[in-house]
């Protein structure tokens, strides 16, 4: 009997050891590294910063197509317009659109109208970039994990969404807000007026994209321009940080470290050094670097650097120029661009206004990047630039806008709307033979989408145009 009691005690001992209260002990799976909610300000910081980064990423893709830059390696895929899978940029665009989506939903719940308004403008901006590159993309089933395989929306309809978002953004920014934006806004520091102007400027930009379609309404473009920027001081731009340099400065630094990139296209050099247009552009030395011998020599797109060494013999992006200053700005939308939009829209309505807007656009860009005023006047007064209203053509607008949009992805939209019709603009050497001697019209859908969402991905070739490019 005594023995039996002892036996039970062992059992009690064992049981006591075994069942240390499990539930509390195991309830430790709340992530200490990542919160389950994000502050509106934190989403604003990332949304503005990443929108700027996306401008760089899309610009980086477009620079070869519009022949700002050329690859130092022969027949490099992007340079010869082969299909390249830009999974990373696609992912970055959707990441920030997801964050903007969360910011909008959260702002709606908190009636933080200004946050909602900025969110809508940034959504329009990123969505617009995605549509301009790929055409049909997911949107209506995107962001909120309603499905693992979101369907693709029609690109023309998405443009209506973009314009609707801009209008909604303007309305929200004009309303009262429960929470004001501050330094968490890297673009305008919370200034609602500036955001409204930027929204109108973007409206003008996207309405102007319809130029080749039957729905083009230049009056509407000019109406938007009227509410847009009033000068360079209104420009939408993001100035970089001591901790995080301007990405174009990084390209220049990497190139100096022999991680080659940022080599200037011969097309761009010749357009600015007088070869193509007979006038030397004072912006050239402020935009790109010279060779060791102080010359400006470009690289032919698709041809690579040939026997040129890795350094010193060709023009490249050099650290410290306007576009490549460590803590310098990256431009999202500028007064100069707006002026060229105005010039294009007014061209068929009021040619004198168009001509003036064209000259103002050049002047705005030159002021922006710091050209001496005497040089500005000298350049503008040259007959090649100030040809007079009568001799003034749409080609002049596109040429000068192309210079002013240096490294910006919008330049590729212009190039396609203009059918790459720039003076002496040649196809790259070693062109992708599938293009049948034509310029690229869109990006291929990235491999990540094809492998993860294959059944929804539209079947397109690089020659299939975006809806506005007819």
């Amino acid at each position, binding site marked *: 009997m005594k023995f039996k009691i002892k036996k039970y005690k062992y059992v009690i001992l064992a049981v006591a050891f075994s069942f240390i209260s499990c539930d509390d002990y195991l309830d430790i*799976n709340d992530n200490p590294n*990542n919160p389950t909610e994000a502050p509106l300000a934190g989403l604003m910081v990332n949304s503005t910063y990443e929108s700027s980064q996306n401008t760089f990423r899309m610009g980086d893709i477009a620079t070869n197509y519009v022949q700002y830059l050329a690859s130092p390696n022969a027949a490099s895929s992007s340079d010869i317009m082969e299909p390249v899978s830009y999974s990373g940029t696609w992912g970055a665009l*959707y990441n920030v659109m997801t964050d903007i989506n969360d910011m909008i939903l959260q702002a709606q719940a908190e009636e933080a109208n200004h946050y909602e308004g900025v969110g809508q403008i940034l959504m329009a901006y990123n969505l617009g970039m995605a549509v301009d590159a790929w055409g049909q993309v997911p949107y209506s089933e995107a962001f909120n994990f309603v*499905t693992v395989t979101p369907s693709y929306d029609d690109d023309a309809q998405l443009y209506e969404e973009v314009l609707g978002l801009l209008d909604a953004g303007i309305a929200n920014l004009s309303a009262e807000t429960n929470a004001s934006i501050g330094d968490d806004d890297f673009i305008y520091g919370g200034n609602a007026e500036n955001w409204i102007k930027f929204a109108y400027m973007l409206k003008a930009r996207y309405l102007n994209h319809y130029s080749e379609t039957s729905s083009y309404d230049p009056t509407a473009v000019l109406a938007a321009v009227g509410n847009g920027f009033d000068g360079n001081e209104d420009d939408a731009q993001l100035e970089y940080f001591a*901790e995080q340099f301007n990405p174009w400065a990084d390209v220049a630094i990497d190139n100096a470290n022999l991680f080659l990139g940022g080599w200037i296209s011969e097309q761009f050099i010749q357009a600015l050094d007088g070869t193509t247009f007979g006038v030397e552009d004072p912006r050239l030395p402020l935009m790109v670097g010279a060779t060791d011998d102080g010359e400006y020599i470009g690289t032919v797109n698709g041809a690579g650097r040939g026997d040129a060494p890795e350094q010193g013999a060709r023009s490249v992006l050099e650290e410290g120029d306007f576009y490549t200053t460590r803590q310098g700005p990256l431009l999202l939308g500028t007064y100069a661009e707006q002026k060229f939009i105005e010039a294009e829209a007014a061209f068929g309505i009021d040619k004198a206004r168009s001509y003036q807007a064209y000259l103002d656009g050049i002047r705005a860009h030159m002021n922006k990047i710091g050209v001496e005023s005497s040089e500005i006047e000298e350049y503008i007064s040259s007959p090649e630039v100030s040809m007079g209203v009568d001799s003034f053509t749409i080609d002049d607008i596109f040429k000068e806008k192309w210079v002013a949009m240096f490294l910006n992805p919008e330049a590729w939209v212009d190039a396609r709307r203009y059918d790459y019709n720039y003076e002496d603009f040649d196809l790259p050497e070693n062109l992708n033979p599938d293009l049948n001697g034509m310029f690229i019209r869109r990006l291929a859908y990235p491999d990540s989408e094809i492998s993860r969402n294959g059944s929804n991905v539209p079947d397109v070739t690089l020659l299939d145009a975006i809806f506005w490019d007819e």
Partner: protein
Amino acid sequence: MKLKTTLIAILAVFQFASLFAQESSVSGLVTGSESGEPLFGVNVLIKGTNRGTTTDFEGNYQIDVAPGEVLVFSSVGYEKQEVSFTGQSTIDVSLVEDLESLDEVVVTSFGIEQEKKSLGYAVQEIGSEEITKTKQQNLVSALQGQAAGVQVTNSGGAPGMSARIIIRGVNSLDPNADNQPLFVIDGVPIDNSTIESAGTPRGLSNRAADINPNDIESLNILKGAAATALYGVRAANGAVIITTKKGKAGRVRINLNSSVGFDEINQFPEFQETYGQGFSGNYDPESFWPNWGPSMEEINQIDPDVRFYDIWSDAMRKGTQFDNNVSISGGSENATFYGSIGKLDQEGVIPFSDWSRTSAKLSGEVKFSEKFKFSGNINYSVSGGNRVPHDRFMERLVYWAPNHDVEDYINPDGTMKTYGNTNPIYDARFSTFEDEVNRTVGNLRFTYSPAEWLDLTYLIGTDYYSDKRTEVTPGPMGIDGENPLSSTGFIRETRINSRDINSNFFVTLKKDWTEKFNTTLRVGNDIFERDYERLDATGENFVIPEFYDLSYASQISTSQDKRKRRLVGVYGDLMMSYDETLFLNVTARNDWTSTLPIGNNSFFYPSVNLGYVFTESFEQGDWFTFGKLRGSWAQVGKDTDPYLIGQTYSSPSIYPLGGQVGFTRFSQFGDLGLKPEKTTAIEFGTDLRFFENRLGLDVTWYKSNSKDQIIPVPVSESAGFSTFVTNAGEIENTGWEFILRGTPIKSENFRWDVSFNASYNQNEVKSIREGIEEIVVGSQFGYGGSSVTIKLLEGEPYGNIFGTSYSRFGADENSIYLNEGLPIIIGENGFPSRNSTQLVLGNTTPKWIGGLKNDFSFKGFDFSFLVDFRAGVDQYNQYDNFFSAFGIAKYTLNRNETIVFDGVNADGSPNTQQVWLGQGEGPDGRNYGAGFYRNTYRTVSENFVQDAAFIKLRNITLGYNFQDNVLKVLPFESARISVAANNIILYTPWDGFDPESFSSGAGGNATGLTGLGYPGVRSYFFTLNLGL
């Protein structure tokens, strides 16, 4: 209140201990029957109890015993002997030698010793000598070729570099899963993760490398789910059970062990040594292009002083290693101890790579009474070194023109000396990465045996380490005309702290129901916790050149990662044996994990295995010594990593920026209904021994299916996440294992033992998830679009390499496999045309692996060698891709030849067009641009996915043990000298450095991508062992 009850219970238990009385003491001498010499360390046990002792150095023992009890004398290498106690005061025993003891004891779960013949599943034990003989400093590497079904791969030849171990194939579809087994030391699991460097690969250590192999007594590999069911989720990939050395009662023994070794690269690729610097056949001493210039003959006509250096040998050095160990052990009947100190210093073949390990170990066991035992173990180690950026080093060596002396790398002012390209040695010297791991592994074990039929054991262990890493890349020194390694320079400080705690309490109940039928029941509780934290701080742009401190960097970014995981398990294990013939073992376990959603976090899994020693039941010829059939069915559950469930936000590491912290929705979403994975395994085997155990054959067949895999499914980023962690997919491994061993010669002076093992594994991804076509395990760069990707596809085996190929005439458009048998299509330009569609070019998982071991002993001499092999494996040879792109490979010597490519035209007619392989204008006046190798060859992945089979002489050792006549005049008890050589490649179709090296490190699954890995080395050792 609860505490009080517990105390009373414990007191009651102690009280119980003194119940047995009426014992008398017996003593005696144990000798060997052949030699008549006293035997030290013989176990003397009272049958059916846990009371026992061991003989001292003079062979004497003393033990308390009650009349009617039976004394059992046992010792390794001798037959067991039983003597009944009838009141004698002295019992002297003479043990008969039995070199082939059948009652092999193996250590399974929780340090429990079990007779091997009772097991219904395959285990394989590796002894202390077999480990130290390999001279491998990483104990994982020491397992190479030694056990069937166990694949061990060195990730490279750097000192301290990680080695990967996979048992019976990869069990997970998750490309990031660690498919390696659990490592257990003295019953307590330890961490064997490999935390690779951020950025360029530097070849860090797997944490088991912190263990000094000299401290290991034996190592057991538990392969299947059956063997590991009791370790639960963490052993789902098998377990490596390590038992460390313990002291033995008797005289204090001191062992000294000193070894010096040398490393050199074991195989070089075939290089061309004809063409020098330049491009298109034009010599240029400042050209970026190392080998597309003219021949040396032509170069010397331009400049007679130009030499062609053997940069591949010049840049390397002879590696060295010094290993010194002292151990001291001994004890009395009631207390034993073992202590050791080891120091290893290694320098690798790439300059400035080094690693060292200092380890100290102390273990002891105390018997407070016949009923209460306590043992403890503590191991402290400091390890680390400078990890050179080997991948970048080798890449820079590729770019280095052999017309320049690579060893002449530095100017007097400390800046880099170069003709243009970065000097690899300069980079290796100044781009440093130093790690230091301070680690303590310890455990305490309490055993209380209040009654013959009852044991209570409590085991608690901890594994704590801090890993301190400092990486520095210098910025410019501020000297005119310098070529800095980086325009900014950076310092990255990483601090990792990890602490594991394991607690395990179990009760063992034994009962002999009849003479023939016995049972043992074990029930227990197991608790595990891991607390991990990592901090990273990076500073860029040094304010003062060469002053490397975070405080003096102008751009700072930081990140932090904290993780905690807990597991609670309850298990039961019932073993039944009938007449030493039939053994049935049933286990059951339930685990609760912190990493799965509450409600889904409890999971139960059973196992059953049966062993039948049929030779006990039937009469058979004398030649048939032993035969056993075994079978098992088992399940193992598996949880996942912490914090995977639901949606979170994160702050990317770039923040804060301008004083602001940005947030982004975390890209991963974890299924709210995530449930445990389940692996079901069946296994059948037989163990046959003949001619008094001089010949043995062991065959095993297994099949395991892992279902409901927890995998990060990549989903369209537009969905709002890029990864959805959910239960999806199934993977199956089926295989055979064979072990054949024998003792062909056994005479008084000469003995020859041989053992051969081979295993075959077949793997299939049974399913992934609807809508998900493929899972990418890894990819690697190749020039001109020849990058390759390892992908998992439904119905295909693990490890298929996809890449570009030559277009084939008549190829099946629907096949994902390249059909190499078909003729190559030659394009209109006369060169082979390229198919850019990604096809399967090979598979990176070996079909066959195995090893052959031979041991010879003759008087004091012993000689042994171990060969291991793998077959049916392909790898992507990134070196070869670079060597073709830069004209370094020997086969590019034909660059100035005009040939007709073997193949057919688009219409199927044979190709007859002559083409020149060189660059620029050919003899036929046509412009060939960058030439065949750059235009075509380097862009076709097919050229670089190559057969990576090998046969290696892993180790060859010749040793001499000094005999008594010499030892008599020396102050030593034993003395041995030996010489050994390791890792000599006997055969491989692979052209390049050792095909074993790969770039991802032991934790990665993309082993088939060699990268520009640290070249493999062969080593030579001279070793002296002395016993005092």
